[in-house]
């Protein structure tokens, strides 16, 4: 009944084709990813005449809120572009039996394939192809440093160096903010690990608050008290709400901004020629110099009627030439190891953008194992939303830092109790 109702329009189109297999691909985008894939699927259709992939472009809210509900009752698309690998892992399709060269995919995407190999999923399964690898990292307003006559810290400089230099620049050029970090536990985790947070015990169970974590939390709250950090970003929201500071950076009101590689395209477009900006490269704490990896990827779902077709699409998506074409257009960093080595010929980008893309791609190999463990941890979203909720309470004075950290541990424990 529902299939008849829903697909009348598309049936009319494909009625002439015998045994046509129609796949639905639920896609969200930050830039132009869905259009890029839609264009590539033209090639796919030419190579695989029996299969049609239809791209349904949806808001990110659909991926986060409705997709899990649909999958739970056996509805939903055949493929989707997602970020929450751990939460959706149980619905994913292992395409290893349906691809011709599984080893090639393993060799190229091994590191990010691990993100979906959680829970009951097969330890060698192929579930996800990442098409937008992201890395957290800093951006600095180079023109401000020149105006202030302050030397910019080199790659490998410490958080303390950056705080000091940013404050000096802020005071010299007279802007509002020295530093800002996006309001999410995902961004917070990178400096916390650099300060020595272990995050997991030897069994791989999360232990969030340890000495290293506490050390950075103290430093972070202190930076808010002395005005180093832009108060508007963390104190300006509540709960687990995400908030960035890209607007402040673009408007030349912020010296150093810790965010991630996905901002590069936007900065290139919106900053234009107003000032020079650079990626800072790795920033170090007392214990490490890591950032956080992440990224969106394409997965197939096990309820599909056409697993072989889904396998064919996934293999197509993983192909070097296809990935290179899409990434060149969307200006993302490759997750594909071959392409990481070979580099991507980005289309039509400025010097600042090209330099930043290169700098971020170069920082990825130095990320710590803990960072990858956190990204691959099935319940990492509980950590990402609890950190801003509790740390902000300490910043605005609703709780003392000790109380906030205690509540934070409790929140994580409560969340894990619900996960079965």
């Amino acid at each position: 009944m529902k299939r008849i109702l829903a697909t009348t329009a598309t049936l009319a189109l494909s009625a002439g084709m015998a045994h046509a297999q129609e796949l639905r691909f639920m896609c969200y985008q930050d830039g132009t990813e869905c259009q890029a894939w839609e264009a590539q699927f033209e090639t796919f259709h030419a190579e695989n005449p029996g299969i049609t992939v239809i791209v349904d472009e949806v808001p990110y809210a659909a991926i986060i809120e409705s997709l899990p509900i649909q999958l739970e009752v056996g509805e939903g698309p055949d493929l989707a572009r997602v970020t929450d690998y751990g939460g959706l892992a149980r619905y994913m399709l292992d395409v290893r039996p349906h691809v011709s060269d599984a080893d090639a995919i393993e060799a190229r995407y091994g590191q990010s394939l691990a993100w979906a190999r959680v829970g009951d999923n097969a330890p060698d399964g192929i579930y996800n192809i990442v098409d937008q690898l992201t890395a957290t990292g800093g951006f600095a307003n180079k023109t401000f440093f020149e105006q202030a006559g302050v030397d910019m810290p080199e790659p490998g400089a410490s958080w303390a160096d950056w705080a000091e230099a940013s404050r000096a620049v802020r005071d010299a050029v007279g802007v509002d903010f020295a530093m800002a970090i996006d309001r999410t536990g995902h961004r917070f985790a990178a400096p916390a690990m650099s300060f020595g947070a272990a995050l997991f015990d030897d069994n791989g169970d999360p232990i969030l608050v340890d000495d290293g974590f506490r050390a950075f939390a103290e430093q972070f709250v202190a930076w808010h008290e002395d005005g180093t950090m832009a108060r508007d970003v963390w104190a300006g929201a509540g709960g687990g709400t995400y908030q960035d500071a890209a607007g402040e950076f673009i408007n030349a009101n912020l010296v150093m901004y810790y965010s991630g590689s996905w901002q590069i395209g936007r900065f290139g477009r919106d900053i234009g020629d107003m000032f020079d900006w650079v990626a800072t490269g790795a920033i170090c704490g007392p214990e490490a110099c890591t950032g956080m990896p992440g990224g969106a990827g394409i997965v197939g779902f096990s309820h599909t009627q056409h697993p072989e077709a889904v396998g064919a699409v996934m293999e197509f998506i993983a192909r070097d030439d296809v990935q290179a074409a899409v990434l060149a257009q969307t200006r993302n960093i490759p997750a594909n190891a071959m392409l990481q080595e070979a580099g991507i010929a980005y289309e039509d980008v400025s010097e600042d953008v090209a330099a930043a893309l290169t700098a971020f791609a170069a920082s990825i190999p130095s990320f710590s194992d803990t960072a990858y463990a956190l990204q691959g941890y099935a319940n990492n979203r509980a950590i990402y939303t609890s950190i801003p909720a509790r740390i902000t309470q300490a910043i605005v004075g609703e709780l003392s830092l000790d109380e906030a950290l205690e509540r934070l541990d409790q929140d994580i424990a409560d969340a894990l109790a619900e996960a079965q």
Partner: protein
Amino acid sequence: MFSWLLGRRGRNGFDLTDWLAFGFLGLGVVLMLGPVLWLVLSSFKTEAALQEFPPRLMPLAPVMVEVSGHAEPLPLYAITDGPEAGRELAQIRRIGLNAQMVDPARPDEVLNIHINDREAIRSVAVATENYTTVFTRFNFLLYFWNSTFITVVATILTVLFNSMAAFALAKYRFTGRTAVFVLIIATLMIPPTITLVPLFLVVSQMGLVNSHWGVIWPAIATPTGVFLLRQYMLTIPDDLLDAARMDHASEWRVYWKIVLPLSAPALAVLVIFSVMWRWNEFLWPLIVLNRSEVFTLQLALNAFQGELQTSWSNLLAMTVLTLLPITVVFAFLQKYITQGIAQSGVK
């Protein structure tokens, strides 16, 4: 002291009460309409201009000039300080803190200007591409049709079913009346956010996922509509209904020919609400509809919101477009909120 709330024009000319009323309305226009007008102006701004603060009222873009010897047009700057102050120069490129600039009238002479000594010259420029993108990127007409279909069908059914229920609750005495009324009001208490998941279980069991009826059916039995209409119908005098019954009018005739016309103001309000609710509905269609051929305008509009970035320029343009149809509906229907019993001569 309250007289300015009640005065009627044409009695005593333009008196103090009118001044107070218009003062209130003037303030209302600034507070209520000001932000909306700004929204419309902003929908013509580029993405970069939207990020700018302090925010500007008008959409502005840099003035570009053709300079011989340069293939691309160059941005024009006013020089505010230094030896060249007062001139208008075009910028060739910026290197660090200095800009290489050139006078469009004398293209051979390159000047070095400190970046703090220059200010971009900008003029009003309308970013119509915000709007054209909306049409090229989506099947706008299909989504428009989907939204219209859902809105029209749901509104007709809402008004029909709600007014029938309201009529029964307002004009009949039967056992269970209070219980039914309280039950209907009670369903308002559970926040819609929380019933989305169980409701999806029901709708998916009925096979209505990815069907417009999956959006229409759950929406039409609005407690608000029943409550609003029932309270309005209470004010219709029972004598009027009884008089008609004496003339052997059927109950259906009493409802359709007497109660409905007399409820016109409340019905007009419910139609406006229903159109607005269905047209703007987002969260429920997001969950029920996930194939592009059944998408509504609101889903397409929100597709401009990604995980990490939102394309505000397109989102605002599309917002303005989706507001146009309901504006027309409102303008047409608000006239009916004047003809009730007061004008019909019935007591």
